């Protein structure tokens, strides 16, 4: 009967090779698909965003002097008592945040791999600004990941902090921002945070399907607003230290 032609056979082989069996569980299916991975990024991003907002507001305590700041830091350890043991809340939050960071990072890494593989040959005639947002997210993400490591070593464990005294966050903060490199690292990271939130918030809204043509403007304004407020809020601390408002 009909002789199958070569391309058909090639197609078929390719498809069979490419098509892995689909996981049946909802979570498995979610993690396998690009939209699912982006959903993971959106949700974990939202968790981190909420945390950042609280973190930023907490940071502003620094302007009320060492006592306010240090007692606020102490209070954080007592949240949930007596139901929760001392510092349990903090640890629960740290674990949740760590999970969010890992999920966000792994999904981002895998998606980037897929995206880069999807365009193996580049165009000879390159256009300007084609992938501005994508590049910002990728480089910004890497910068932030490195920053988080430094930030924890600096102000959580105190390992690399010039002061490094437990229970005295106010003094530790001031010590960090008394160094030039502390300021540089922090400024770069906070600008990266702003840009990351600006595109990430908008993208997350699209991924979660809450965007619509009528909401588009509102989403963009909110994204820009959040990015701006968080960047300024965070940067106000080193600026305060630099200008001597905080010492």
């Amino acid at each position, binding site marked *: 009967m009909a002789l199958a032609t070569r391309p058909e056979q090639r197609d078929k082989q390719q498809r069979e090779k490419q098509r892995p069996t689909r996981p049946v569980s909802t979570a498995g299916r979610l993690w396998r698909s690009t939209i699912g991975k982006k959903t993971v990024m959106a949700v974990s991003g939202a968790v981190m965003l909420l945390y950042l907002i609280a973190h930023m507001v907490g940071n502003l305590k620094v302007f009320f002097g060492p006592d306010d700041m240090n007692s606020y830091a102490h209070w954080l350890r007592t949240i949930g008592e007596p139901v929760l043991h001392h510092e349990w809340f903090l640890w629960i939050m740290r674990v949740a945040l760590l999970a969010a960071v890992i999920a966000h990072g792994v999904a981002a890494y895998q998606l980037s791999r897929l995206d880069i593989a*999807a365009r193996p040959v580049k165009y000879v005639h390159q256009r300007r600004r084609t992938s501005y947002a994508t590049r910002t997210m990728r480089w910004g993400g890497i910068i932030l990941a490195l920053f988080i490591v430094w930030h924890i070593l600096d102000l959580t464990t105190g390992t690399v902090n010039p002061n490094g005294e437990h229970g005295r966050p106010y003094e530790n903060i001031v010590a960090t921002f008394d160094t030039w490199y502390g300021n540089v690292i922090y400024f770069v990271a906070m600008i990266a945070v702003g840009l990351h939130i600006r595109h990430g918030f908008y993208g997350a809204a699209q991924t979660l399907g809450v965007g619509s043509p009528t909401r588009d403007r509102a989403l963009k304004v909110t994204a820009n607003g959040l990015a701006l407020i968080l960047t300024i809020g965070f940067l106000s601390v080193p600026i305060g230290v630099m200008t001597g408002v905080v010492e």
Partner: protein
Amino acid sequence: MNLTLRIWRQTGPDTEGAMTTYEVTDVSPDMSFLEMLDTLNEDLILRGEEPVAFDHDCREGICGACGMVINGNAHGPERTTTCQLHMRQFEDGDVIDIEPWRAAAFPVVKDLVVDRSAFDRIIGSGGYVTAPTGSAPEAHATPVPKAAADTAFEHAECIGCGACVAACPNGSAMLFTSAKVVHLNTLPQGGPERESRVLDMVDTMDDEGFGGCTNTGMCTTVCPKGIPMSSITTMNREYLRALRKGV
């Protein structure tokens, strides 16, 4: 006018390609871009060289066969199909770079011709309503609100040219896939297969090696039929809804 063309020449799927320079003279501004290539090809044949291979058919902007990246833009400087681009968009002495669609899922067949059969497989995995011939109820049995009919039509306009994939920095087929998902999922006729459609089509899209969406919006800016970005958001929503409901 006289132009310099730099065209991607590649003899077959497994061979190396390169940009080759040609001069064309006496180009009329009323010519379509493909007619300009026709005249080049007539010359090449008479000189005993192989003409430039490119896909084209209706030359009315509706079949979706034509498509090349012109100076880094999918379909060229105007938001239309390559066949509807006219030489009045260019000026005497211009250098024009012409390249094929670039994506892992669209391997080059020859010169500017690529294999877009991945699109057919995406449609085959769910881009239909199961309505075997003869089984249809009377057409007026189910009224469709005009707004839904209009939305469905706007998305059904997609011509499957692949410009969205070519323009996307990630070689993503989200706009193509979402156009069909939104078309059919908006209509009551598409209701019974609403969940399986979006899940299966997205799975196939991922399996074919297209990248993910990073919300750059490049796809919509080149789409000759103006499929909106909200199409992707709606598909994301449909996808997550389908996952929640489970299939």
